[in-house]
C-alpha cells in the first residue's frame, strides 16, 4: 500500500518534468516589435513578458492542447489553440491596433461638436461660457463658428445663407418650440437655456442625420447632463438679475432647482441705451430638474421651466407711419421634457425616448392694438439603436408632434392645428478604420399640409493620414412653410433644401484645422404675391396669394483654425466663412440675396489663463460684412449694402474663495471700441426718410458674481 502511494507520487513527479519550450516574437501589423506584451497560456501560471525586441521564451508543463493568449494595451488581443507534445514551438504573432479615436475615422461633414465625452472635438462645453462677446449664451458662441453668421437685430441661428427659422434647437431629441426669449422688432434676445445644463452640444452646418427634421439649414443639438456636479446652494448676482440654485444628489437620483428675478433698469441707468424703453425688461423664472437612475442602465430625466417677462419700447424704426410707435410685450413660457434612456442585452440595444410639452403666450400690444398670439407643442419620440461589432450601428425611430397656434392681427384671430409625424432609419458602417459611411432615410407627414415627404441622407468619411480625414455629406431636408403663410393658405407644400458638403480636417496635438465647402439648393420656397411694392416691415402679416414657386441656392466655404498648444495657457481660434446666396421667395420680385445674409464673416477668439491670479481673460473680435437692405428709391431690388459690423469684446473671470465659499467674479465689456454699428436700414412708408437699426447700446459692460455656498464644491478653473 505504502509502496503504491510512493509510486504514484513518483509518477506524478515525472509527469511534471516533461516541459515544452515556447518562444517567439510579438509585432504589430507593420512588423514593428512590441516590447512589454503579455504572453501566457490561459488558465495557467505559465507565460512571459516580451523583451525589448518583442521576443519571449518560456517553458510549460502543460500537455496536449492549450490556449496561447497575447495581449498588449492598445492592441486587439490574439488567442490561438496550440498542441503541446514536448517539442519546442516558435510563434510569430502579429497584433492589430485597437480602434481608438486617434486611428478611426469619424463622420464629420457638417458637424461641429462640443463634448466632454469625445476627445476629438473642436470645442469643449466650457468654451461656451468662457468666450468673450457671447455673453455666456449658447447661440452667442455658435454664431462665432464657421458656417454661422451674426444678424444683430434678430434672434436665431443663421447658417450658410439660411434664415433663423431654418435652424431647429433640439434638447435631448426634443424640438424646442421657443428656444429664445420673446422679442420685439429689431431687438436680439438670448437663448432661454443655461449652458451649464448641457454636457454636449453639436452644431450642424448641414447634412445632418435622418434622426432630425423640420430644419432646412441646421440643427443645434443639446444634450443635458446626467448628474449634478455640485451639491448645495448657489447664489448668482449681477447688474441685471439675482438668482438662487440648489442641487442635491445621491447615487440614485438628483434634483436641481433654479429661481431668478431680473430687471434691466439698473443696467440701463449705467449703460447708454439707443432704444427708448417704455418698460425696461423685467423677468422672473424658475426651473426644476430631476434625474433618476431606474436601474444600472436606465436613466429618467425630467426638466420643467417657466418664465414670465415684460418689456416695452418705442420702435427703433417706424413700421406703419411716420410717427414712432409704442410696443409692449408680456411673455409667458413653459417647457417640460421627460426623457428615458436605457441599454439592453449587454449594450447591444439602446433606447432613447422622450415626451415634451411647451406652451408660449405673447401678449403684444402695438400702438394699443392687440398683436399677440400663443403656441403649443406636444411631442413624443422613441429611437431604438442596435449596436453591432466594431461600432457599426443601425437605428430606427419615430416622432409625433401636435402643434396648436393662434395669432391675432388687426383684432382678427387666426388658428392652426398640425399633427406632424415622422419615421426614420439610419445605419452607420465602418468598412475599415479608415472608411466609414452613414445612410439614412426619413419620412414625414403633416396633417395641415396633408402631404408626405421622403428625405434620404448620406455621408462618408475617409482617413487620409494619421491626423487628417476627408468627409462628404449629402441629403434632402424638408420643412413646413412658415406658419404665418399657412393661416391663410393650407394648400402649400413642404419647402425643401438639398445639401452637398465636402470637409477636410486635421487634428494634431491640440491644433485643429478644418475647411468645408458646400452647395445648397433651395426648392419649393413660399412666394407671396401682393401686386404692391415690396414691404420691408419684418412683422407684417402676409395677406397676399402664396405658392411654392420659390427657389434659390447658397454656396461657399468656411475655415477654422484653433491652436491650444503653441503658447502655454493661451488658446486662440480663427474662423472665416464665405457665402454666396440668392433666392426668389417671400415677396421678392426676382432672385436676390436676402437681407439677413452677409457674404463674409470672420472672428478671432483668444483666451488666456493667468494661473497666479486665477483669472481667465478672453478677447473676441468679429467682423460681418455689409448686408443688403431694401431701399424703395433704388430701382435695383436689394442692391444697397449696409456698412460692415465690427465688434471687439472682452471678458474676464476670477476665481476666489470668500469665507471658504467658492466664488467666481466676472466682467464683460462689449464693443470696446464703441463702434457705431448699423445692422440694417428701414424707410418710412413714404420712402422719404431712412432710419438705421443698430444695437440697443454701443459700448456696454456687465459685472456679476456666482457664489457656491457649499464646502463640498470641488471646482476647477474650467468651471468658470
Amino acid at each position, binding site marked *: *500500500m505504502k509502496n503504491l*502511494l510512493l509510486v*504514484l507520487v513518483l509518477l*506524478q513527479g515525472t509527469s511534471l518534468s516533461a516541459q515544452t519550450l515556447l518562444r517567439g516574437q510579438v509585432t504589430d501589423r507593420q512588423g514593428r516589435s512590441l*516590447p*512589454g506584451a*503579455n504572453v*501566457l497560456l*490561459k*488558465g*495557467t*501560471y*505559465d*507565460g512571459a*513578458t516580451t523583451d525589448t525586441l518583442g521576443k519571449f521564451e518560456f517553458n510549460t508543463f502543460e500537455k496536449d492542447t492549450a490556449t496561447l*493568449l497575447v*495581449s498588449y*494595451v*492598445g492592441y486587439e488581443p490574439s488567442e490561438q489553440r496550440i498542441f503541446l507534445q514536448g517539442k519546442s514551438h516558435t510563434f510569430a504573432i502579429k497584433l492589430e491596433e*485597437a480602434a*481608438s*479615436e*486617434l486611428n478611426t475615422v469619424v463622420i464629420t461633414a457638417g458637424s461641429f461638436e462640443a463634448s*466632454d465625452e469625445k*476627445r476629438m472635438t473642436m470645442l*469643449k462645453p*466650457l468654451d461656451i461660457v468662457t468666450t468673450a462677446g457671447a455673453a455666456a449664451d449658447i447661440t452667442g458662441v455658435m454664431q462665432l463658428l464657421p458656417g454661422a453668421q451674426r444678424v444683430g437685430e434678430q434672434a436665431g441661428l443663421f447658417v450658410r445663407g439660411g434664415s433663423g427659422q431654418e435652424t431647429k434647437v433640439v434638447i435631448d431629441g426634443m424640438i424646442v418650440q421657443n428656444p429664445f426669449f420673446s422679442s420685439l422688432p429689431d431687438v436680439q434676445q438670448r437663448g432661454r437655456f443655461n449652458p451649464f445644463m448641457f454636457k454636449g452640444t453639436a452644431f450642424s452646418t448641414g447634412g445632418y442625420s435622418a434622426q432630425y427634421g423640420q430644419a432646412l439649414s441646421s440643427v443645434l443639438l443639446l444634450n443635458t447632463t446626467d448628474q449634478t*456636479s455640485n451639491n448645495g446652494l448657489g447664489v448668482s448676482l449681477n447688474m441685471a438679475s439675482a438668482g438662487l440654485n440648489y442641487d442635491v444628489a445621491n*447615487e440614485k437620483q438628483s434634483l436641481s432647482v433654479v429661481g431668478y428675478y431680473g430687471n434691466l433698469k439698473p443696467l440701463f441707468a449705467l449703460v447708454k441705451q439707443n432704444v427708448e424703453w417704455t418698460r425696461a425688461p423685467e423677468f422672473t423664472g424658475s426651473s426644476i430638474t430631476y434625474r433618476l437612475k431606474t436601474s444600472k442602465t436606465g436613466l429618467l430625466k425630467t426638466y420643467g421651466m417657466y418664465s414670465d417677462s415684460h418689456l416695452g419700447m418705442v420702435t427703433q424704426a417706424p413700421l406703419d407711419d411716420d410717427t414712432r410707435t409704442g410696443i409692449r410685450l408680456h411673455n409667458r413660457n413653459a417647457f417640460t421634457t421627460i426623457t428615458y434612456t436605457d441599454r439592453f442585452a449587454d449594450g447591444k440595444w439602446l433606447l432613447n425616448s422622450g415626451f415634451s410639452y411647451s406652451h408660449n403666450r405673447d401678449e403684444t400690444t402695438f400702438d394699443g392694438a392687440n398683436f399677440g398670439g400663443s403656441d403649443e407643442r406636444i411631442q413624443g419620440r422613441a429611437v431604438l439603436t442596435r449596436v453591432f461589432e466594431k461600432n457599426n450601428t443601425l437605428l430606427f425611430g419615430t416622432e409625433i408632434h401636435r402643434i396648436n397656434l393662434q395669432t391675432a392681427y388687426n383684432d382678427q384671430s387666426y388658428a392652426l392645428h398640425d399633427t406632424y409625424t415622422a419615421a426614420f432609419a439610419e445605419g452607420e458602417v465602418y468598412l475599415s478604420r479608415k472608411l466609414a459611411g452613414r445612410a439614412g432615410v426619413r419620412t414625414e407627414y403633416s396633417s395641415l399640409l396633408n402631404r408626405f415627404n421622403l428625405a434620404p441622407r448620406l455621408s462618408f468619411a475617409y482617413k487620409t493620414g494619421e491626423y487628417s480625414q476627408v468627409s462628404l455629406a449629402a441629403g434632402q431636408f424638408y420643412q413646413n412653410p412658415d406658419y404665418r403663410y399657412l393661416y391663410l393658405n393650407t394648400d402649400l407644400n413642404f419647402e425643401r433644401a438639398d445639401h452637398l458638403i465636402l470637409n477636410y480636417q486635421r487634428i494634431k496635438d491640440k491644433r485643429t484645422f478644418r475647411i468645408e465647402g458646400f452647395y445648397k439648393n433651395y426648392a419649393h420656397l413660399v412666394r407671396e404675391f401682393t401686386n404692391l411694392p415690396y414691404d420691408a416691415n419684418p412683422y407684417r402679416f402676409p395677406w397676399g396669394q402664396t405658392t411654392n414657386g420659390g427657389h434659390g441656392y447658397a454656396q461657399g466655404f468656411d475655415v477654422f483654425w484653433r491652436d491650444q498648444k503653441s503658447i502655454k495657457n493661451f488658446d486662440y481660434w480663427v474662423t472665416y466663412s464665405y457665402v454666396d446666396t440668392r433666392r426668389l421667395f417671400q415677396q421678392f420680385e426676382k432672385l436676390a440675396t436676402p437681407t439677413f445674409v452677409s457674404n463674409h464673416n470672420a472672428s478671432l477668439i483668444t483666451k488666456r489663463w493667468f*494661473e497666479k491670479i*486665477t483669472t481667465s481673460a478672453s478677447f473676441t473680435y468679429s467682423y460681418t460684412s455689409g448686408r443688403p437692405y431694401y431701399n424703395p428709391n433704388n430701382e435695383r431690388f436689394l442692391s444697397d449694402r449696409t456698412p460692415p459690423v465690427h465688434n471687439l469684446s472682452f471678458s474676464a473671470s476670477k*476665481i*476666489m*474663495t470668500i469665507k471658504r465659499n*467658492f466664488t467666481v467674479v466676472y466682467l464683460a465689456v462689449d464693443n470696446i471700441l464703441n463702434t457705431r454699428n448699423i445692422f440694417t436700414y428701414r424707410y418710412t412708408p413714404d420712402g422719404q426718410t431712412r432710419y438705421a437699426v443698430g444695437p440697443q447700446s454701443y459700448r456696454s459692460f456687465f459685472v456679476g458674481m456666482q457664489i457656491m455656498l457649499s464646502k463640498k464644491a*470641488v*471646482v*476647477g*478653473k*474650467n*468651471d468658470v
Partner: protein
Amino acid sequence: MKKILTISLALFFSANLLFAQSEKYTAAMTAALTDFDKSQNKEPVRDEWLALANRFERIASAEPKEWLPRYYAAYAYSSLAFMGNNVTEKDQLADKAEVLLKEAIAIAGENSELMVLDAQIHQVRLASDPQMRWQTEGPLFAASLAKAKTMDANNPRIYVLEGTSLLYTPEQFGGGKKAARPVLEKAMEKFATFKPQSPLHPSWGEGQAGYMLGEASK
C-alpha cells in the same frame, strides 16, 4: 478494500492538487509582491510596472477565484496610466485597469481597498486631462474615497490618496500644503496600527505618505 483505496487515492490527489495550487499561488504572489514593493518605493519605471502588470495578470488567469492578483494588476495599470505618453494611451491603460477592477469586484464584492483603487483610476483619468475632466472625474474620485471610508475608515490608503490629491490641488480650489498636511498625518497614524489581513493583502502607501508629508511640511 478496493473501494476504500480508490476513495483515498482520489482524496490524496485532490488534496495534493489543491495544496499544490494554493502553494503555487502563494509562492507566485509572494515573489511578485517582493518586486511590487521594490517598484512601489522608488521613482516609477515603466518597464518594471509593465512586467508586474503582466505577471499579476498571468496569476489572475490561473486563479479565476482570487481578487488580489486582479487588484494588483489593476494597480499596476493605473500606475502605467500615469506614465502614458498621451491622453489616448493613458485612457487605454486606465480602461484596462478598470476591467481588472470590475473582475475583482465581481469575485470579492466591493471592499475598502477596491474602492481606493477605483478612486485611483478616477484620479489618473482626471490627471490626464485636468482641464476637461474636473467636473466629471473629480466628484467620482471623491465619491469612491467616501465609499471606501464607510467600508473601513481605518484603511490608511484612503488618506494617502486624499492627501496627495489635496497637495497637488491649488489653494484657491481648497487644496495646498496646509489642507494636505492633516490628512497625510492621519494616513501615517493609521499606518502605525494597520495590519494587513494576510501578507498578500494590500499594505502599500506608507513610503508615499511619508514623502508627501515631507513635501507638505516644507
